[in-house]
């Protein structure tokens, strides 16, 4: 007979994951062993480095904050756990010490749940385990704990809603058959093992006997330790430092199986063998990282993995996964500035990887190393760092000036290189550009002085086509290479503007006005009158481009060359012209609405999201879209006034 207090606690826990998966009798038993902890404000629940006692926590009342201690001793808030949230469970299951400092932000009441009974429950209740694993993989807090994020530069967003996510079916997937496992014999030297690992770019090597049965494993960490402590000579056999015996798992293991085994054993690498024991041959290795990757919707991990990708086919898989992350961001209404930063980093990582693959292929073809310094330029929305969905490629290549007699040879090298890069990018899902605005086009693969001449021509001769080119090429950004060449181009453009400024700027502003204001007199949408997209609204041409074009011409006029993101441009403009700050803020906000809307539509339909039929919008979306038109029109009016375009027309 449970007592009333235990029943009350049961009543509270039964609606909270993972307790909600437990049967009543089981949960009542858990509840009757709960310890109710009272934490006055500012008191510590646990400290980093402390071993977990046999309990984890559910917040009943109040708020507990988790802090990580940075290397400089400062505290960084990692997560705020409110009522009904669970914390302090991972170290318990994994047998680690606490990583964070947990402190009461206000007067709090915690239910300290005895894990002793709980660990047994996990074995009997796969859904509990699955919930715990997914929530760990999904939350930035656990991602930090896995330390996987540390290497990547992206700041982990303040996005903790993953903690309450419902379990997905990913954990039931089979583990990806890993690359051919890297193996060595026990009598080979440590230095040899390290060399194999470096060559294969893997974090572990399996030590096998003559029948390829695993006898031990050596990981990065083992190597670091042996080098750091110098207790073992690098010429010693690997057997001296290997971990043995290895934990094995069968080829038909699911992600969940792997995670259970890792949590239970506390090891970070499992060896896949034919029959799942160490009495059969090695077929693969599964690391914690591999698991996290399948589970995690963590951009930092994704970027790391892009760095490890060996084929453009795999890059496409990874980019598909980025789309899942994007969908999650959009669903959770994460700030667009953060989303664009993350997605740009992912796009850039893919470009860099494609470049690495292309350079390797040039080597393999016998073309050798690049004959001159060069930079790979991303153009258009990619250049502005605003690309969310995969669109056509827009890129160019700039190389340093070389002697005239060598020019053709050097250019031929870079054209071939660009051919490969664009091919890989196409494989990864960024289709070739219809207008051939790509580095593989001889027109857009030029030396510094030829690019300068090209820009001078565009600025001098303001035809409609040249203005279109400027609108694409002016938003260039170096993604790979020396890094100095784009700046030379920028310096040249500003010098050139001193001479041709007024007319060029006016033409640029004129181009920004070419698309009529998106509202008709009756405040309805202007839809396309003919063609494939008849009766659809062109989000890009009618609403977004006027805003990007306006931002570009205004920022060029203000001589601010290094800002090539539309949001940042409006932000900078608002500072430069306080009298128009409100308008610029509105414009940035409208642009955010548009970029978000386009991404949502594009994801839903699996296209670029450029065209929208008014009927497919929800009422709120329609309202947001319509409101965003006001700043578009006002910005256009500002351009008209400033560049006196009324007279030009």
């Amino acid at each position, binding site marked *: 007979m449970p007592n009333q207090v235990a029943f009350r606690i049961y009543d509270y826990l039964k609606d909270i994951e993972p307790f909600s998966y437990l049967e009543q009798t089981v949960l009542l038993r858990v509840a009757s062993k709960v310890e109710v*902890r009272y934490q*006055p404000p500012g008191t510590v629940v646990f400290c980093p480095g402390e071993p977990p006692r046999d309990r984890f926590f559910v917040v009943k009342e109040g708020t507990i904050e988790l802090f990580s201690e940075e290397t400089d001793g400062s505290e960084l808030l990692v997560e705020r756990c409110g009522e009904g949230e669970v914390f302090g469970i991972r170290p318990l299951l994994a047998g680690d010490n606490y990583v964070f400092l947990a402190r009461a932000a206000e007067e709090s009441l915690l239910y300290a749940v005895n894990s002793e009974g709980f660990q047994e429950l996990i074995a009997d209740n796969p859904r509990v385990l699955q919930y715990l694993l997914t929530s760990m993989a999904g939350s930035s807090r656990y991602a930090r704990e896995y330390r996987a994020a540390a290497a990547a530069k992206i700041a982990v967003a303040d996005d903790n809603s993953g903690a309450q996510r419902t379990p997905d079916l990913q954990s039931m997937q089979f583990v990806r058959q890993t690359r051919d496992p890297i193996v060595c014999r026990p009598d080979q030297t440590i230095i040899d093992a390290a060399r194999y690992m470096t060559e294969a770019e893997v974090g572990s090597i399996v030590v096998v006997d003559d029948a390829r049965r695993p006898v031990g494993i050596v990981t990065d960490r083992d190597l670091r330790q042996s080098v750091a402590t110098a207790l073992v000579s690098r010429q010693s056999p690997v057997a001296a430092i290997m971990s043995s015996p290895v934990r094995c798992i069968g080829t038909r293991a699911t992600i969940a199986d792997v995670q259970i085994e890792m949590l239970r054993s506390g090891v970070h690498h499992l060896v896949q063998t034919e029959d799942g024991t160490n009495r059969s041959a090695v077929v693969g290795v599964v690391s914690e990282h591999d698991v996290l990757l399948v589970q995690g919707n963590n951009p930092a991990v994704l970027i790391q993995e892009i760095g490890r990708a060996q084929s453009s086919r795999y890059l496409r898989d990874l980019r598909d996964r980025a789309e899942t992350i994007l969908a999650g961001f959009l669903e959770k209404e994460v700030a667009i500035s953060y989303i664009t930063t993350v997605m740009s980093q992912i796009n850039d990582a893919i470009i860099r990887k494609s470049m690495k693959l292309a350079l390797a292929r040039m080597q393999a073809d016998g073309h050798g190393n690049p004959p001159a310094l060069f930079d790979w330029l991303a153009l258009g929305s990619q250049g502005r760092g605003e690309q969310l969905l995969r669109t056509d490629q827009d890129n160019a290549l700039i190389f340093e000036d070389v002697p005239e007699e060598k020019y053709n040879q050097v250019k031929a090298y870079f054209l071939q290189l660009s051919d490969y890069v664009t091919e890989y990018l196409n494989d990864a899902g960024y289709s070739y550009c219809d207008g051939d605005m790509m580095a593989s086009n001889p027109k857009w693969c030029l030396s510094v002085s030829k690019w300068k001449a090209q820009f001078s021509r565009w600025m001098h001769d303001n035809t409609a086509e040249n203005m279109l080119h400027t609108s694409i090429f002016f938003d260039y950004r170096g993604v790979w290479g020396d890094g100095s060449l784009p700046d030379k181009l920028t310096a040249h453009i500003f010098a050139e503007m001193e001479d041709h400024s007024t007319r060029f700027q006016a033409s640029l502003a004129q181009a920004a006005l070419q698309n009529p204001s998106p509202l008709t007199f009756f405040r309805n949408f202007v839809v396309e009158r003919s063609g494939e997209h008849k009766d659809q609204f062109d989000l890009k041409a009618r609403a977004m481009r006027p805003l990007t074009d306006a931002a570009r011409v205004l920022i060029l006029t203000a001589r601010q060359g290094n800002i090539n993101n539309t949001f940042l441009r409006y932000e900078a403009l608002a500072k430069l012209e306080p009298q128009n700050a409100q308008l610029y803020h509105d414009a940035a906000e409208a642009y955010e609405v548009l970029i978000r809307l386009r991404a949502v539509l594009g994801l839903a339909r699996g296209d670029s999201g450029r065209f929208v039929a008014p009927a497919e919008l929800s009422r709120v979306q329609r309202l947001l879209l319509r409101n965003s038109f006001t700043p578009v029109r006002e910005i256009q009016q500002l351009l008209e006034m400033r560049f006196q375009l009324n007279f030009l027309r």
Partner: protein
Amino acid sequence: MERLKRRLGLHPTDADSEDWPPWYRAYRDILAQSEVPAADRLLNTITIVVLDAETTGLDVRTDRILSLGALRVYGNSIHLAEKFEAYLPSPSSVENSHAIPIHGIIPNSRRYTYSDEPSMLAELLDYLRDSVIVGHHIGFDIEMINRALARHGAGPLKNRVVDTVGLAKRLRPAGYWTPEGDYSLDVLARRYRIPLSDRHTALGDSYITAVLWLKLLTRLAVKLDRDLRISDL
């Protein structure tokens, strides 16, 4: 408190130690062996038992205990697994008692496991040992228990006793804003935002009192600006 102690000291059965039942003697032996905690000992290092009794009424001479509930508190945590819970059959004379609507214990209902009064008291003493007893208007509960002990030839409770009412009054003395009578568990629980579930069951009230105890101690520590010691009670 002084009055209570005097009364306990004058308890008639106290002297008849030769006739004590064995379970009471065992309790006294434990108390005799345990050291009296020093006055400067930190409060969070001693074991507290929060106790509540449900009775047939408020007259210590005629009314009887219906149930006892108690929880152990160490430092800042309440251990549910170490609860004490006991129900007695209601005496025949009070079967139609007015107490039923309040605590919901229906006389001779089969819902609860009963124990007879002596074995309940024996279990209680074994649970209490040398803990400090905390309760709300605890003087009444102690007196009810002591009278029951006396009926079965045992001596009184000898534990240190702390009343949460006294603690609450120290933090917020009665005065213009707080009427003298306003220290009921309901009022205090509301003031310190403790949900009033399972009110009027012995264990439910113990739980509410335990949370109140922890919250009051924190406020007292803030007021005194130091860690609390036994002498602060």
